[in-house]
């Protein structure tokens, strides 16, 4: 009787572990696909006033830019940067991904949100400068081994320019940062 209980118990434990593994994998996949939370404050923007539509599209496209950047750095796929990056930002990030591939590294982000302050909107509406107060957890992995794991609060200066149907990140430069 005790032996049967033990046998059924161990089978149940194996199934539970497998189920938990599947759930954990699914949760990670969902986190990868989840759009980072971005809040835009355009109260101090100038000299041009932000249009209603632009005030919606800038945070949306910035969130999508971060999402694709995080995926590109995690999966080492530079092609993912094509959608929402251009100019120096795309050039630097592509170089970073290629460098990661060469070194066998990848970077995993857990995005805890962005507070975006719009600072400058050019009179012709062709460039916007913003300051991002970002909170992310960064893990650097060499193969499967975690070599760095830190929560980071960082400030970025961001330059965005309008493309055909979206705003693109042209410059993304960390200017300050602390570990909380």
């Amino acid at each position, binding site marked *: 009787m005790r032996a049967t209980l033990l046998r059924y118990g161990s089978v149940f434990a194996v199934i539970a572990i497998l189920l938990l593994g599947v759930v954990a994998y699914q949760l990670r996949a969902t986190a990868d696909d989840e759009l980072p939370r971005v809040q835009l404050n355009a109260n101090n923007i100038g000299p041009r006033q932000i249009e209603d539509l632009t005030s919606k599209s800038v945070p949306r496209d910035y969130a999508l830019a971060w999402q694709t950047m995080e995926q590109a750095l995690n999966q080492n796929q530079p092609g993912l940067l094509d959608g929402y990056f251009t100019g*120096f930002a795309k050039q630097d990030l592509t170089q970073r991904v290629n460098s990661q591939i060469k070194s066998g590294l990848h970077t995993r982000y857990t995005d805890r949100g962005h507070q975006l302050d719009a600072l400058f909107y050019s009179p012709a509406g062709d460039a916007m400068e913003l300051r991002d107060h970002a909170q992310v957890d960064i893990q650097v992995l060499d193969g499967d081994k975690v070599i760095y794991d830190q929560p980071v609060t960082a400030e970025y200066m961001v330059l965005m320019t309008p493309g055909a149907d979206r705003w693109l990140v042209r410059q993304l430069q960390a200017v300050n940062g602390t570990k909380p």
Partner: protein
Amino acid sequence: MRTLRTVAFIFLAAGSLAASEIHPPAQATAGKAITIQTSGSGDATFYLIGPAIASKSKVQAGSDISVDSDELQQAGRYIAILCASDGCTSADFFVTPAAANRLSFLVHPSRVPVGTANGISAVAFVHDNFQNLVLKPEPVTFSIMPNNEKPVSATRPSQNGVAWVRLTSARKEGPTKLGASIGHADEIRVVEQVAADACNLRIKADREKKDFEIETDPVHDCAGNPVPDGTVVSFTESDSAGKTTVDVPIKRGIAKIDMPIDGRAKITVASGVVTGNELEVSGQ
């Protein structure tokens, strides 16, 4: 004596087992090499993660690590990681932009009517030699170099890496150069100043066999600049049968049209929002 030897041995053993540490400078300048100090001993792996780099190299813990200038060209946050037999240790540091020496200069529009108040905007983004945005205030000199006239310049300090001005276009048509300079950077853009809307639009009519030839005087804007060829002028004929409008582009400074007119008719002319004189003609 024996106790002393034991204590010394413990200290030595503790020293050799001390955890590896890494000490990059708190701040570095873009494009300048640095040395990172480490402690510990034995074989180790050094990783440098930055905005455009993720490198990995074998080092000896406890020795200094040299990071080349070309690995530190992008301003931003860098992570230095040292992994030895006792685990991994890391430290963050920032690379700040080098001296301002480049500009991204945006001028809008490329064609502007003469005499348009604040019609031209010029925006300069200040960069260093490695295209990093230089955030500390820097004086940017904007200049206007009209044809056959003295250049005029004004200096504006950059704020968060951006300086900008708004300018009124000149009274005379033609190309004008706009410049922005900082350090060794001197960027120039050309804006074409074109005639504004037509002014004092006037027409005259001549009988040509059965038809009337309606022709404008040379079309100018209010500053006397000829309105460019291709600008549309609308001629409207109103008679007892109704109204007929014909759009004609200006050719060689004037717009003209042959109109068949029966009986009495009024002819008016307009270009854009500007209207001209009215003629009364009488056909056969």
